[in-house]
């Protein structure tokens, strides 16, 4: 009865990523997340390869699978050709598919990513654009960014961009037909289904937590998942 492991096997990234682990630790040795978080990619791979249903379910509902930064430094080192980073991708996908992601503080953040990056992809055809990096939400960008945000067209067009213009160029307006094609791709390939799943389970969780979930990035639940850190994510 290894249903979760079998489900993982359906993901081509999982099949690429897991051959068999000999617990040598070269992945954890080099992993940036293992330096700062209470995270050990070797242990995760070792747990997954036991195929134990309960242990895998605990991973899918827990915090640890969300610490990885997908830098893939692990792939460079593994002597068995495993890729802990790809296994993490498969775990994260399955966690969202099953709705388990809302059980962890870090997992709940998927809604924030969907409503910022995900929305941007379908609305503009870019993952990220200057308007998305609003200075108020990103004080780390510094005073120079704050200034540039107030004069986007003047600055960006000075630098050779075609800001929201037609035709080629940086930050151009991506044509409607292209956005329509993206929308259809998302529909057919399960992209929309993923977005809907994230919303559905987040909505349930928001009710459970008694937090208001609106449709944008200002509501109680959104701000909660975007900013909450229980400070228990680092190593003792």
């Amino acid at each position, binding site marked *: 009865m290894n249903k979760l492991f079998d489900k993982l096997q359906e993901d081509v990234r999982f099949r690429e990523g897991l051959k068999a682990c000999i617990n040598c630790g070269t992945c954890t040795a080099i992993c940036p*997340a293992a330096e700062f978080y209470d995270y050990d990619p070797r242990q995760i791979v070792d747990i997954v390869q036991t195929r134990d249903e309960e242990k895998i379910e605990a991973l899918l509902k827990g915090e640890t699978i969300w610490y990885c930064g997908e830098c893939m*430094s692990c792939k460079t080192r593994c002597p068995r050709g495993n890729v802990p980073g790809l296994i993490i991708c498969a775990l994260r996908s399955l966690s969202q598919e099953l709705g388990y992601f809302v059980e962890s503080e870090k997992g709940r953040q*998927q809604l924030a990513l969907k409503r910022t*990056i995900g929305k941007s992809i379908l609305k503009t055809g870019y993952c990220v654009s200057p308007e998305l990096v609003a200075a108020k939400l990103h004080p780390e960008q*510094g005073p*120079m960014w704050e200034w540039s945000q107030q004069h986007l067209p003047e*600055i960006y067009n000075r630098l050779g961009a075609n800001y929201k213009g037609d035709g080629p*160029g940086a*930050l151009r307006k991506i*044509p409607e037909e292209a956005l329509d094609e993206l929308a259809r791709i998302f529909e057919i390939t399960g992209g929309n289904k993923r977005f809907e799943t994230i919303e559905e389970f987040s909505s349930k969780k928001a009710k459970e937590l008694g937090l208001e979930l609106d449709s944008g990035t200002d509501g109680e639940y959104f701000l909660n998942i975007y900013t909450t850190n229980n400070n228990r994510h680092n190593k003792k």
Partner: protein
Amino acid sequence: MKVEGKRLIWKDYQKEIAEDKFFYVRSCIRQTFFPGSEWAFLKIMKEVLGKDVYENPAHTTCTGIGYHSDIVPFDTTMTVVARQFALMTEAGYQNLVPSCITSFGLYTEVMETWKHFPEEEKKVRDYLKKATGREFEVPKNLAHASDIIYKFRKQIAAKGKYRLINKTTGEPLKVVEHIGCHYAKMFPSKGVGGAEYPYVLTGMVEDWGGEVIDYPERRHCCGFGFRQYLVKANRGFSVACSKKKFESMAPYKPDMIITNCPGCPMFLDRWQYVISEMEGKTYGEDGHGIPVFTYEEVAGLILGFDPWDLGLQLHQVPTEPLLNKIGIPYDPFKKYLGKNGEDIGIPMKPSMLNA
């Protein structure tokens, strides 16, 4: 350290980089934070090197950031990638040049996946046909824009007006080169020089007069980590990674940092500002910080492009000290002007960083 040892390894990782006729796809982050770099790349390719670089405005994001934030399923990402391939094929091109390193890693990952799992390619062809009616051929050559500049670095040096040399001392500038993780860590054979001692930026620096310095955390990720930066609650991870690098490189006294990934220079630049505000600590000389550049910016400076056309005014860590070191002239009064020379105000100075 014996650099000859590294040269032995570089020999093993030679990569085929196309000569001409490139299909260019842009980078979401490059456009957002370093639009001048993409402008510079195209100007260098077309006007300085006389190459054919074509951009179809209907191309979109590759969804790389969404994919690595795990909100976009792999099937969706593969199909969007296939659409980019289709646009390239339809325009009659076979050489794909992404501006973004995450894109480069993603295109490589998708093509490798299709090699190991041909049924995935078939599935994607069907999806794309159904969603858009388009068909595609896999690119014959995939090279990142930095690979192209690397390939033509000697021609750029020959036409260059400036060198990476301290004009007062005559010594080569000490340069930290930072390679984006998704350039070679996933598929070392797809990176010039491999994953351990990548040569793509070192080659540029050496041919442009500088000296590359090695330091223990050279290969460490800058800390973007996708969701680790994009969600505010996680940002500590991101700044911690960059800080680790700064602490490690500081004893080697670098004059500048050069990078090839779009996200990395943004992080290495902004996190210096943040660390100065949070801890009062600055790196580099006189509290100026260590200036961070994209390779397009460095190529542009070598060729004598105006620093403000290149977009250096959008750096939080000031680049003027480095321009002074090299002897590149600039007009400080033109730094913050708009496209038509209009006065659009100036940013506030950071409280700790000597800008």
